[in-house]
């Protein structure tokens, strides 16, 4: 039960994009069409969960006993950067077709602030390892949902007559704002 509430609150109530303003760059950049959104969402899901599995034990078993917690930022970002590299090498060698279709998304993931934020949250919220993994999954699914929603809205915006000063990026943020209002409705879901 507790796990379900962690998952749902990470995915809907504290939606990483709409409520916490993280991962905005891929949100605006990759929501051009649903296919790209799903590719980005799945790649982020994979790296987020992997990053959680690696950084959490590293913090608990290495940094904490050695009193090196002040190195947290440095260690976590290096772990994520090297994870992304590893995933890239692995896919290139073993699954070239998937690598070709995900190629551009992969390197971008290192600078995706959602992943780093999740690894910090895992520590500061005092999760155990299973809760941390569920939380990571929930956050990534939240990103996927909001990417898909914006991709759908963008298809409509293309056909809509817009006031001149709103054309281009401004209208995307207005749409995001309205989407965020809708997501605020989820805040009563748990408790």
């Amino acid at each position, binding site marked *: 039960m507790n796990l379900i509430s962690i998952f749902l609150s990470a995915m809907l109530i504290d939606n990483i994009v709409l409520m916490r303003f993280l991962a905005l760059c891929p949100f605006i950049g990759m929501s051009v069409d649903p296919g790209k959104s799903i590719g980005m969402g799945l790649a982020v899901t994979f790296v987020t969960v992997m990053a959680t599995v690696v950084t959490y034990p590293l913090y608990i078993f290495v940094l904490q006993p050695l009193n090196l917690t002040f190195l947290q*930022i440095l260690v976590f970002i290096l772990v994520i950067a090297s994870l992304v590299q590893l995933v890239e090498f692995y896919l290139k060698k073993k699954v070239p077709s998937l690598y070709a279709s995900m190629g551009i998304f992969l390197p971008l993931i290192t600078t995706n602030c959602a992943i*780093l934020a999740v690894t910090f949250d895992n520590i500061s919220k005092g999760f155990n390892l299973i809760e941390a993994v569920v939380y990571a999954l929930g956050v990534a699914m939240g990103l996927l949902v909001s990417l898909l929603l914006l991709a759908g809205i963008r298809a409509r915006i293309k056909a809509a007559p817009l006031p001149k000063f709103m054309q281009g990026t401004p209208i995307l943020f207005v749409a995001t704002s309205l989407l965020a209002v809708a997501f605020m409705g989820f805040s009563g879901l748990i408790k």
Partner: protein
Amino acid sequence: MKQLWKMFTRGLIVENPLLMLMIGLCSALAVTSSVANSIGMGGAMIFVIVFAELVISLFRKLIPKDARIPIFIIVIAAFTTIIHLLMQAYLPDLSESLGVFIPLIVVNCIIMGRVEAWASKQPPHFAVADALGMGLGYTWVLVGIGAVRELLGNGTLLDFQIMPQSFEPILFFTLPPGGFMVFAFFISFNIWLKKVTGTKAGNTIVSESV
């Protein structure tokens, strides 16, 4: 001197990292529910970008090309850790309200972008001029958004009551959706400003290769 001034000023409007290049947005929207938070975040950002660009520019001839990205990340992470610990020690309230966004400076695309495109190729004084311009460009937008949101959402500026007592605060603006909405109008305004001052988008590419 004139050249330095030009490098400094372009970050303010023409190549404003937030409004024109649309990078580093996350922290810009998240912390701007009040002016005080905006100033704190802007200050931290200026600290990190100035020192990161300075250090990388000083060592630009020693950094091997293939290993440059990890080296940039380590330098940026080091300065981020310094400001994070400093703020925890001396400004605990501000550090508390900015939360995870101070450590997240390390993945801020503005710093990585400027270091890669500018500081790793230019002498230190050019790098610092550019860093100050980009940092201040970031800060003024943050303070601007923060001012609009705090004034409309709370009726105050830096916690001083500005609006008359009869003004009913519009809660919408302090909540996340209000951040997106205000930012949309800021971009729109900057596009108009750019059109009026007659600067072309092509200038970006020219100034990169000065």
